[in-house]
């Protein structure tokens, strides 16, 4: 039995009377790829924002490896081991690909401002090590050749990959991917599935992803949680979810109303 990385208990958030997430619980284990699906507006991204501390939950708990994250800011949660990508890509566009990754490594480096201004040995040592690590990480994703390009000039698919690389550089225990396949063609999506599996195998982390592309979700997720109107309506393995009448109704039923 592998250990639990993320545990959420009855998360709820209320904005001015509306509750985009009314009751959300989940458990994600180490080396697990979990999926979070649901119709548009079900509250999936809000869940990510609650997990990463962008929003403060009105009720409920987020527990990362046994530690309650209540009161943790986004920054502290990143240090604690939660990394994410964004639905609308948020790269450091005018900065090189390598620097994007190095910014992810910032927290694991420790030289002071004084040693950077005086160029003390510690600066050289840590910079060299971080650069090597960053290039290695990029090479895992076949991006070492792009290190010097400005992130904003990368093709779309590479931008999505770079966001994942940057998130991995923070050395996370839990990786949150917000619609990683959005805007990709089927070939790119297949490649992305390989990448996600590779991340799980090589980095030993838990992955929770939001996705609308069902071939991807059903292809790689071991466990799927379905959200509708801010509430969990089903959870289980891909085959269980595919045959769950409530889920089918949530997707198709909403279509009928339109």
């Amino acid at each position, binding site marked *: 039995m592998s250990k639990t990385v993320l545990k959420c208990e009855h998360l709820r958030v209320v904005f001015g009377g509306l509750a985009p997430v009314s009751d959300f619980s989940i458990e994600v284990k180490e080396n697990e790829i979990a999926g979070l699906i649901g119709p548009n507006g079900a509250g999936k*991204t809000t869940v990510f*924002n609650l997990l990463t501390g*962008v929003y403060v939950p009105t009720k409920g708990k987020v527990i990362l490896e046994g530690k309650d994250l209540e009161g943790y800011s986004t920054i502290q949660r990143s240090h604690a081991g939660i990394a994410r990508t*964004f639905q609308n890509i948020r790269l450091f566009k005018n900065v090189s690909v390598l620097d994007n990754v190095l910014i992810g490594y910032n927290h694991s480096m420790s030289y002071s401002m004084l040693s950077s201004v005086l160029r003390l040995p510690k600066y050289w040592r840590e910079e060299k090590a971080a650069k090597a690590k960053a290039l290695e990480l990029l090479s895992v994703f076949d991006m070492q050749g792009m290190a010097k390009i400005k992130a904003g000039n990368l093709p779309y698919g590479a931008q999505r990959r770079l966001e994942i690389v940057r998130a991995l550089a923070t050395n996370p225990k839990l990786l949150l991917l917000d619609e990683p396949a959005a805007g990709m063609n089927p070939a790119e999506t297949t490649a992305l599935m390989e990448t996600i599996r590779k991340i799980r195998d090589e980095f030993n982390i838990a992955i929770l992803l939001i996705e609308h592309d069902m071939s991807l979700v059903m292809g790689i997720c071991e466990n799927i949680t379905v959200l509708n109107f801010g509430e969990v309506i089903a959870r289980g393995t891909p085959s269980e979810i595919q045959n769950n009448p409530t889920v089918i109704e949530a997707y198709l039923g909403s279509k009928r109303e339109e």
Partner: protein
Amino acid sequence: MDFYTLIAQIINGLQTGSVYALVALGYSMVYGIIMLLNFAHGDIIMVGAYVVYYSIASFALPPLLAVILAVIMCTILGVAIEKVAYTPLRSAPRLSLLITAIGISFLLENGAQLLFGADQKSMSPMVKGGFSMGSVGISYAAVVTIVVSVIAMTALTILVNKTKMGKAMRAVSEDMGAAQLMGISLNRTISFTFAIGSALAGIGSALYLCAYPQSSPTMGSMLGIKAFVAAVLGGIGSIPGAMIGGFAIGILEALVAAAHLSMWKDAVVFFVLIIVLLFKPTGILGKKIQEKV
């Protein structure tokens, strides 16, 4: 300080406060619609003041006509600035737009200095005399200023809340993209906002001249900055907020002056702004905007 001086100072404060409020409205409306701190707004007042000065001093026009001319000129100038300098930058980063506004502001100031000279141009007051209520003397200028600005503000509130154009303005400030999809012309609405704001600045310039009958190239910069402070204080983007902020700053200044500390006036105004922003960053009536993640 005795009671009567206090009353007199508060009336003074209301008088300058109404000018601030009128100018603050221009800032607030433009900010609400395109999120731009229109630095040049204060200098539009300066241009308006010169128009009034020259039409009375050189062309001997009746004051009312001079004021109308100033309002027209300010409106044209405001819209022209928007078309020439701000429209090309609508999709540019906010910082570029802000720097452009600062550039326009300095262009107007220095252009005026070249055209009209750096010295102050004094004129005889447009509204003379006054009356007394008990032992408090009230000038007609103060009465005219307060009455005119209250009328202008009421008209603006009606315009924004009751007319079709007002609805368009509110829609654009809420969500530019969605408003456009609803068939609202962005260019027309934004230009209209600048026109209204600048017209108010024109009225403001005339009222300013009632209180201080002299114009100089840099008169707009401090007036403009303080009006902006008033808009921020009241909550930027909010019309009643701009009015409250304007009167608050005016009265604050008058009280500082009454305490014989008028040379500290500017410092006190900014200090109050910093304190307010610390505790309520959105101002008195402002609402919070959060970036969507």
